[in-house]
């Protein structure tokens, strides 16, 4: 028992580390999607933030400057998505794909132009990163943990949250109540940008010591899966992020380990979040009901 405890603690700690970017992204996605704006661009915003944070930290030597740059980059992409989806009434999925491709291309293009090492940024010294503050975790992990009750509170307990939920279900009702549909949705999309910005900063300034190309490696999509798996609610989505983080840790621990004489393929763990989400969406286990007005452009007027 005494020998097991440190093992469990390390497992929990590892899970939290892997889940941190997922949690931040999922909470960001929650704001956007609960307001009716589909966001498959979580991945791109997080990638752009990771790059911007590492680049700024490399140049200024300051982690907080990195955080500011990371959030700035993600907010910029969030605005692009917002303009296309809200003001222009364009296809939100297409816009999300564009954001992802832009981030994928721009990070390497600028990285190569500025640092000339194949898209990566220089390795950062500890002083330019977010280092451990409590129990082996840094401040961004704490921010991720704090984002969950905060999201839950804002969505469920504030006027803004009430209107945000309303606009995702019935924009006509919101308009009839004399509240601006576009204004609410822009705020939601920007909240999403801010949180994905922190997530990206975590990847390049805390989990790693710098940016490397495509370093998000699909985590934005896993966060999207967690959001859907959590049925667009803060606490269940948090649980899904922890589950997927745990699966990740397990995949690393079990590499090369045989269970009952059969080697467990790592890939099985990797696809678990996606597979579970597909099964959930197909209604084989429970039912994930999206906000009613999600993905539909709102054209004002009567």
């Amino acid at each position, binding site marked *: 028992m005494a020998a097991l405890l440190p093992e469990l603690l390390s497992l929990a700690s590892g899970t939290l580390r892997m889940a941190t970017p997922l949690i931040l992204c999922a909470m960001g996605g929650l704001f956007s999607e609960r307001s009716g704006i589909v966001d*498959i661009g979580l991945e791109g915003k997080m990638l752009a933030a990771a790059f911007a944070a590492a680049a700024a930290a490399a140049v200024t030597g300051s982690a907080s400057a990195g955080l500011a740059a990371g959030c700035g980059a993600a907010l910029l992409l969030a605005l692009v998505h917002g303009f296309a989806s809200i003001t222009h009434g*364009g296809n939100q999925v297409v*816009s999300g794909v*564009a954001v992802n491709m832009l981030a994928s291309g721009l990070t390497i293009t600028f990285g*190569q*132009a500025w640092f000339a090492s194949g898209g990566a940024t220089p390795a950062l010294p500890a002083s330019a990163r977010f280092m451990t503050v409590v129990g082996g975790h840094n401040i961004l992990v704490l921010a991720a943990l704090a984002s969950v009750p905060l999201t839950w509170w804002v969505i469920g307990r504030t006027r803004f949250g009430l209107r945000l939920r309303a606009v995702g279900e019935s924009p006509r009702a919101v308009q009839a109540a004399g509240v601006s549909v576009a204004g609410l949705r822009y705020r939601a999309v920007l909240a999403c940008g801010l949180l994905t910005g922190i997530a990206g900063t975590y990847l390049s300034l805390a989990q790693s010591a710098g940016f490397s190309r495509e370093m998000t490696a699909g985590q934005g999509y896993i966060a999207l899966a967690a959001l859907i798996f959590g049925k667009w609610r803060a606490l269940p989505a948090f649980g899904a992020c922890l589950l997927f983080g745990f699966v990740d840790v397990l995949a690393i621990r079990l590499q090369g380990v045989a269970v009952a004489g059969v080697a467990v393929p790592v890939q099985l763990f990797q696809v678990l979040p996606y597979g579970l989400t597909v099964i959930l*969406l197909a209604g084989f286990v429970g039912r994930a009901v999206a906000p009613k007005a999600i993905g539909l452009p709102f054209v004002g007027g009567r």
Partner: protein
Amino acid sequence: MRAGGTLPRWAELGLVPLLDVLCAFLAAALVVLAIGVSPLAVLRAILAGALGDAGALGYTLYYATNFVFTGLAVALAFHAGLFNIGGEGQAILGGLGTGLVALALDRVLPGWLLLPVAIAAAALFGAGWAAIPAWLQARRGSHIVITTIMFNFIAAALLVYLLVNVLIAPGSMSPETRAFQPAASLPLAHDGLRALGFAAAPSPLNASGLVALAAAAAVWFTLWHTRFGYRLRVMGLNPGAALYAGIPIGRMTVGVLCLSGALAGMVGINEILGVQHRLILNFSAGYGFGGIAVALMGRNHPAGIVLASLLFGILNQGGAEISFDIPAVSREMVTVIQGLVILFSGALAGFSRPLARGLLAFAGAALSRRAGAPASREG
């Protein structure tokens, strides 16, 4: 022309999309400027790298082949009102299918029999991988966009697993299968040209290029000259009319997505049978997503898709070469351009409508001034 007035049809179908694409390229030029390089120099380098000699041209066309396949896949689904972002996964499965057939039969069957079977396997595997999300949408109500995204990742993991654990060539250090026998190789273009008496520089361009053109023609014929295509378009343009006409939307969804997946799966034959001659990782390399840009830019028309594919082929090949000439510019600039095209021609489609309106008003005023001038002199 009134400010809020409608544009003539030719402008709506031709001018506005063209201006949208121009906006995308203008934005790309700004990115290039931002990294301190002259856009014109980049343009020159890209054109030289892509079209400078016969070998480069071959590479350009080889890249374009993949884009034609995935662009057609996306466009066909678009016409039915379906958004297939699973081209990436379907391409992987197509390569897997064709690779499995080649591995199993390349010592048994002669080339003339093996190749059609292997091509059919690519189509079948791609179709099968698309059929699952399609069926889930038609029968279980889960949205095709999310499931096809998830299936991309599942396909990638599946390929890794199979290559690392099952199909890996004995004694190989990297995750790839043994090389196929020559029977499983698609004829290369330069070999064909040499047989006809033309000297041609070697390039990976192969017979899949012809398959791609045939596929474009077949998609065009299907869309506008068959009952299936007619019903598909009704479904995409007005689902209410499809219900009214008695078009079985569920069955059509599965059928259309299967065809779309089969087209995406054909990337596998170009890469695996045409070039690699073994099954490797990452051969789909973003063509699935690139196909979205190609389809949007080509206005979902097979002819437009072939042209857009050529452009993206040029960008891909020129982009690959450009880092030699201008080290500050990486080939990922091509991804940026694809992203911008998806943004401006897709999510922001019609963005340049006010610009088109202004241009027409300007042209109209200029014309009427010229027409009006002699009249006033007479008067």
